[in-house]
């Protein structure tokens, strides 16, 4: 055990000397900041109701405008002003007195024809169109209700709107899994670099002269890489909590991510053992991780979803079983790779 810890300590000392770990944390911080920035931007574009004070003024005209006004009473983000003619409404729009024009007329087939006009290509256009859609959908629901007699199956009544934050689901289903899994990829990449570099520089040969076996060297490197992962994840979770986002089941999340780190590290060791040089190894590793995680995320019970459910506290018996299953898979994979190295050695070294 002592020799393994020595090697692990040497790895960590190398990381500290190069300040690589700081760069890694910096990159993660940047990704987190920017993805949040993006979502805040996009959500405010798509769901202006989520932001207070986004209200649009609609100039209404046509013979069915009374129904439109009725609909606007139920939509907090839109108010309708009635104009005598479509021309007058358009004029108000031109003079910036209204954000959009809606001309609504009864058609011969019993339906209602609506012509909506939104301003072209300004920052507010998206907000206006989203609110217009909300208004017209409410209008549609009202109309549908009044025609319920002609429907074979009447629609279910909608529950009341709740004042929910649009960022809530995103935080738990995207941001937390991303933050938890970034250190996993980083650790795997570190192992690939560490092993291929030793082979390349010829220092692995020197190590083998020392009284340690090849599996022990691999163990040492793996211990170092796996040890730094949960700490980073924990840092993000603590930061989130300080920011007012409570995360449930932290020990389970850390156990799950440690298991995944072990799995990815095993993959990294296997690839560095088989690939001829660093370039091929890193290429294979990136593709392998992409395939592994892409595939796993798409499956029911994938790791990203499992972390989201743990963090948001929607666990059931299967989530607990999943964590155990991942741990077992990781242990088996690592043992297998260790054996492979013990028998075959490293390709390049």
């Amino acid at each position, binding site marked *: 055990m002592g020799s393994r810890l020595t090697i692990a300590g040497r790895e960590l000392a190398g990381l500290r000397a*190069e300040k690589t770990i700081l*760069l890694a944390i910096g*990159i993660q911080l940047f*990704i987190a900041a*920017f993805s949040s920035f993006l979502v805040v*931007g996009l959500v405010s574009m798509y769901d202006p109701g989520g932001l207070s004070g986004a209200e649009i003024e609609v100039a209404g005209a046509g013979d069915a405008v009374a129904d439109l006004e009725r609909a606007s009473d139920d939509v907090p983000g839109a108010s309708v002003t009635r104009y005598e003619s479509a021309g007058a409404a358009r004029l108000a*729009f*031109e003079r910036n007195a209204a954000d959009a024009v809606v*001309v609504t*007329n009864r*058609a011969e*087939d019993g*339906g209602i*024809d609506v*012509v909506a006009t*939104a*301003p*072209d*290509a*300004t920052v507010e*256009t998206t907000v206006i*169109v*989203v609110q*217009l*859609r909300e208004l*017209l*959908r409410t209008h*549609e629901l009202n109309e*549908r209700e009044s*025609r*319920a007699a*002609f429907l074979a*199956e009447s*629609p*279910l009544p*909608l529950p*009341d709107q*709740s*004042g*929910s*934050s649009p960022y809530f*689901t995103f935080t738990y*289903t995207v941001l937390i899994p991303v933050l938890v899994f970034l250190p996993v990829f980083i650790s795997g990449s570190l192992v690939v*670099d560490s092993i291929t*570099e030793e082979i*390349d520089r010829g220092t692995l040969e020197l190590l083998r002269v020392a009284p340690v076996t090849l599996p022990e060297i691999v163990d040492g490197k793996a211990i170092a890489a796996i040890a730094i992962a949960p700490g980073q994840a924990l840092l993000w979770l603590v930061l989130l909590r300080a920011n007012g986002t409570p995360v449930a089941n932290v020990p389970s999340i850390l156990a799950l991510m440690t298991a995944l780190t072990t799995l990815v590290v095993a993959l990294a060791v296997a690839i560095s053992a088989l690939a001829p*040089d660093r*370039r*091929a190894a*890193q290429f*294979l590793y990136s*593709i392998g991780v992409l395939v592994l995680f*892409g*595939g796993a*995320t*798409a499956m*029911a019970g994938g790791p*990203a979803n499992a972390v*989201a459910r743990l963090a948001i506290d*929607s666990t059931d018996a299967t989530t607990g079983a999943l964590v155990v299953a991942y741990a077992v898979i990781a242990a088996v994979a690592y043992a297998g790779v260790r054996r492979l190295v013990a028998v075959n050695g490293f390709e390049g070294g």
Partner: protein
Amino acid sequence: MIDRLRRVLRVARWETVRAGGGVDRRTLLAVLALLSVAGVVLGGGLAAGVVGIDVDRDVYRVGVDTESPYADAVEARPSLTPVSADRASLGETVDILVLDDGVVVASDTPKSEAAAAEFREAVEAHNERLMAAEENATAAFPLTVSLQYVSRTSGLGVEETLGGSADDDGGAGESGATDDEGDDTATGEADEDSDVSTDSDGDDAEDSDDSGLAVPSVSGGAFGADTVGAPGAITPPFPFVSLLLAFVFLVPMNFLIQAYGSSVLDERTNRRGEPLLVTPLAPADIVAGKTLPYVAVAVLITTLIAVAVGGGVLSVLAVLPIAATFLAATFVGAMFARSFKELTFVTVGVSVLLTTYAFVPAIFTNVTPVALVSPLTLVVYDLQGEAVSTGEFLFSTTPMAVGALLLFGLGLGVYREEDMFTQKPVSRKFLDALAVRLAEVGAAGIGVSPRHRLRALGSVAFLTACTIPFVFVAELLAVALLFALPITVSIPVLLVTIAFIEEVAKSVHLYAGFERGVFARTDRVAVAVGLASAVGFFLAEKATAVVQAVGLTELYVGRAAFGSVAGVAGLSPPVLVALFLAPLALHGFATTLAAVGASRNRTYYALTLALATLIHAAYNFGVVSLHG
């Protein structure tokens, strides 16, 4: 010249052979095997219906009776898990409880509220599905909406250039009838409203009823893509698909720079690159030759992608500077890195930063002209089939292309024996790379002609001028990051950040010069190089005033960053001259201050740099409040 080209090509051929050996047949086979396994698994999963990229699967638990009409709605929503109502206890096993008449019982936790909102959407989607199956289409979808985009004829004239063309092209692709409508009204003839409503007739509505289900639709409607259909079919204008396709161009870059970075760092391990260095080849030739194959691969891949996603020559030309910048930044990283580990992080950092820089502005295509700072915006335009003027093309691609060249220049500075094969920290190599570009000032003191001294100071000014593209990029990133904050917070933070960026750009190479002994550590030299640097920065900044022509100053935040020139009309000539020269005085004073600090030691440099930043920020604040 021909000779030189031949030399570069020889290195390129050698690099190609070597790189071909690096990723050998076995590796390629392994990659293919991995991808095909993934394909089979995903395909099988899709067929079996257990695959979907719902990251929010089962995150909310809803207590609902299996007999309830709402059970189907909950069942069909991936993010909701139904829990039998008799086993449900609010807050413990379920987040919300749905009664048979549709009343939702929720607690006041954020999670419960989010679950209630999700449930409401599930019911809406369920209703849409029910209605789509109805025979009486008029009763199910009583409203037929035709949405058109019209630019207001009064005011907002600046928006016309971009938005106007977007309207024409996007609309033509969607539906001819409403497009005519939009154009007519756009020219301000508001007298034909009566025939507007006759446009959307019955069969149009029937057609779009099928697509009416996609409520938060992601179909790629650009601005001006007029739509006809039920209200649910309205898609907010957002070039989603074009953006996604533009992103595809960036993905292969990440793999390319991994190979390139490895190749460059390979030269540096075990002094492998030494034989090349002792040949008559100049470092620039070697680097050009080593880079050429990767540029070729980038062009090839980009062309293939362009053909696949329907982009044209414009897409390829626009992606080229991005590819060059990826390679250049990786080259610098590989020259500075001490080990593969460090290189990996540098590569990841480069990927993340450049992808963000290229992608984020492109999201605001059609919204603001600032989007053009990223060449990827041109790709989005190209994919939408919109015309791009030469001016826009140059504005978008030139800064990145120049930036790539400058980065290669920076890296070339340390492409020499004493830096390549030693284990210096990144910061020291950076200073080396800067100091290489400087000429001695005040070193010997004897026999130095005034012309020589002038040339030395000229190199200082030139180096400062070269930082302008990076200052520009850094400031834009700062603007982008702070854009979302309220203006009372963002403006002061932005002013200090920008002042800091500029002060660093003006003085960091001076520090390098003093540290590496290129400049003598005297106050006279410090003042001289400080002033030279300030002049260089001032001239370069004025030269880039072109950006104002493209309307960057339209944005309030943009004005804070770039606009000490706007709004000076109607002032007397002496005042104008003073205003014009005021920035020079500021730069001169602040940079001289930092230079004097830099000539002492690191602590002094940090202190004077902070002081210079504060002075600069105070000046900027004065300018903004004058023009604000």
